[in-house]
């Protein structure tokens, strides 16, 4: 009974050799040539989302989307966006004929915990791809881990320029838009609605994402003639923003830009409205508030305060294109409420990964990377989209939205003001806001 042999995966898995996997002598290469190659009839994906902490609801929504995507990949349910996706490689029989199974982990929205749970999925459960997450810090941390370990990372909600900028990695892919794109989409709308003679006051969450967001918005608005009166950093842990908001009115600014997300955004916006900023007149103009990155889940927390406030979002369930409708329908039917943008991104990322495997004919990360790089597709809800090879960022239309004045339901909080075409939000891969990092080469991990 005591069969004593080294497993097929059981060669010395030296990271030193990673990155040069293809150059390995054949005797050291496992037959599959990459880490966690599925050997049985199923393949395991790892969904790493915040289950505890302030983003737990967003994480729960991501998880719902993942489950739905797995269902659709395995040919269950109504197929959702599989039917509208421009690539027809997916058959509804799993990926490459293998049934899709998944494991889940809790990022706790902490880099450490996120890496720990991603590692456990890779090391223990044999996950071949990691996806999900609700903050840029976590995305960058997990992306780096996946690069080192040799699995694919399909980022969830991450909006910082760095994810596909200075921290970009060959094994990592981002479907979500970024701070630069938000700014590029928002600026023309702001100009149209509020004019080009405005003075902006920035309140910025004092961490990486906040800084890139502030930099992007300030640059874009200044380019169209706005003046930036002040940029004030607020502590991440702040809950009461009154002492940051109170001086705004007297600063000569007539626009307040809230570079906040999540709980920070809910509180700062609520506080700003409380101070009556929106009823004020400054410099002979109505005082305005802008929230560059909107999330419907978070907007809900701010309640009525979002009414009439402009921002941008990656996707919204009210989009009328066929793909979005199909997704909303299958999600809504299963769970009873419409999906969030985080859910949409996670669903799309899972499909994109599966499709890339099919087209590459392998789960080998290097094959997947090759299949995704420069991939043009449509039918996933954002119109024609490109996965750019140079930085693994998706380029697609960006939605400029506004808090709805007369919502008909608790989900009906935002209305799309403008769909900014993709061409307008594109930038060169070596744009200064994104410069510094290197993509490196794909790592198959074995």
């Amino acid at each position: 009974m005591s069969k004593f042999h080294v497993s097929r995966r059981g060669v010395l898995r030296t990271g030193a050799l990673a990155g040069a996997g293809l150059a390995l002598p054949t005797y050291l290469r496992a037959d599959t040539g990459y880490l966690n190659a599925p050997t049985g009839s199923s393949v395991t994906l790892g969904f790493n989302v915040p289950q505890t902490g302030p983003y737990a609801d967003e994480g729960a929504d991501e998880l719902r989307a993942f489950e739905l995507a797995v269902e659709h990949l395995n040919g269950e349910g109504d197929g959702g966006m599989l039917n509208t996706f421009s690539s027809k490689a997916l058959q509804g029989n799993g990926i490459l004929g293998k049934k899709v199974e998944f494991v889940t982990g809790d990022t706790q929205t902490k880099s450490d915990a996120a890496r720990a749970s991603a590692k456990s999925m890779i090391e223990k459960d044999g996950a071949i791809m990691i996806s999900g997450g609700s903050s840029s810090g976590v995305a960058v941390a997990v992306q780096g881990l996946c690069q080192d370990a040799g699995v694919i990372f399909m980022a969830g909600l991450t909006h910082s320029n760095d994810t596909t900028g200075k921290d970009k990695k060959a094994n990592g892919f981002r479907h979500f838009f970024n701070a630069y794109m938000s700014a590029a989409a928002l600026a023309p709308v702001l100009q149209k609605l509020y004019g080009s003679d405005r003075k902006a006051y920035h309140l910025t969450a004092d961490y990486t994402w906040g800084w890139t967001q502030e930099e992007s918005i300030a640059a874009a608005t200044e380019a169209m003639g706005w003046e930036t009166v002040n940029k004030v950093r607020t502590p991440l842990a702040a809950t009461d923003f009154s002492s940051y908001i109170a001086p705004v009115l007297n600063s000569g600014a007539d626009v307040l830009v809230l570079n906040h997300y999540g709980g920070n955004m809910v509180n700062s916006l609520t506080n700003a409205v409380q101070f009556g900023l929106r009823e004020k007149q400054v410099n002979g103009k109505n005082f305005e508030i802008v929230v560059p990155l909107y999330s419907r889940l978070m907007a809900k927390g701010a309640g009525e305060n979002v009414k009439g406030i402009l921002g941008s979002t990656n996707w919204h369930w009210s989009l009328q294109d066929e793909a979005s409708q199909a997704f909303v329908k299958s999600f809504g039917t299963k769970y009873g409420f419409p999906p969030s943008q985080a859910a949409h991104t996670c669903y799309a990322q899972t499909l994109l990964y599966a499709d890339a495997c099919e087209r590459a004919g392998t789960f080998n990360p290097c094959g997947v990377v090759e299949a995704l790089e420069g991939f043009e597709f449509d039918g996933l809800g954002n119109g024609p989209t490109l996965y750019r090879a140079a930085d693994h960022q998706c380029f697609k239309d960006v939605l400029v939205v506004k808090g709805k004045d007369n919502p008909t339901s608790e989900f009906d909080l935002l209305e799309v003001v403008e769909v900014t075409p993709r061409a307008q939000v594109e930038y060169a891969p070596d744009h200064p806001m994104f410069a510094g990092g290197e993509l490196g080469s794909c790592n198959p991990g074995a």
Partner: protein
Amino acid sequence: MDAIILQILNGLDKGSAYALIALGLTLIFGTLGVVNFAHGALFMIGAFCAVSMQRLLNLSYITLDETQKDFLGNPLKVKTPYVESWFGPDMGAAIIDWSVPLAILLAIPVMIVVGIVMERGLIKHFYKRPHADQILVTFGLAIVLQEIIKHYYGANPIPTPAPDAFKGSFDFGVMLGFDPNAIIYPYWRMVYFAFAVVIIGAVFAFLQFTTFGMVVRAGMADRETVGLLGININRRFTLMFALAAAVAGMAGVMYTPINSPNYHMGMDFLVLSFVVVVVGGMGSLPGAVLAGFMLGILEAFASMNQIKSILPGIDQIIIYLVAIVILLTRPRGLMGRKGVMEE
């Protein structure tokens, strides 16, 4: 000058929240000798009383509106709150509008019950245990309480607006002869400050002028002696705990329009309120209140642009910095008594 007045107002408001939580913590610590890490959770439960009240008043019956579609394309379900059908739309809407102040009526009995259950069920077994054990068990309880709230209300913040009558802000600047808009302050925050002053005053008056309060104060000064006098200290302990819970709960209710409540708001306040209590001096009620307002005002000052431009990031650490300076210059905080929690 106007900027300074503005930040004093902000500081008083922040300070009210700190002082109210610190007051309850000190009441419990001073009388019962228990370090209650679940106190933030009590504040949070209070806040969710406001959410519950709002939900309760918004209980609705559903009618289908064929002219509108929901997100799946089915006829839109229109919800009409029962209170609106009972009292008419205007009166009903007004009642819903006032759900936060009305929630006080809900919070007081709820918090008293929660307090009594907590004290009788758990805390009383820990009077004689080391402070470390008290911290661990109440921390565990805090996690359990917040997970329960998270399960029913989710992790996202829930908007709980103030009544319309208190929306917007008052222009102090004009009153004091500054430019318009120089010093504006939201009405609800003024309500909150006034409320804090009333509650703090009431607690002090209660301790000062009632026999119950006298016994409690004597107990705070010397527990053993009071126990020896044959006074049933246990029942009073329970009531004290319930009182502290009610104070925390009411503070939570009134805080909800300022920041939308979420399940971890108690933890967010916990560490700060402990710093406040210790800076005030363990076991000293006036110390807790004084430290609360002082730290609130200093925090507000530290977030002024003029100060941040000289000392970047000072607003991130001001409270801790002040705590360190005070504890090093005054060994037992502002008004702490000797020998309390020093071993």
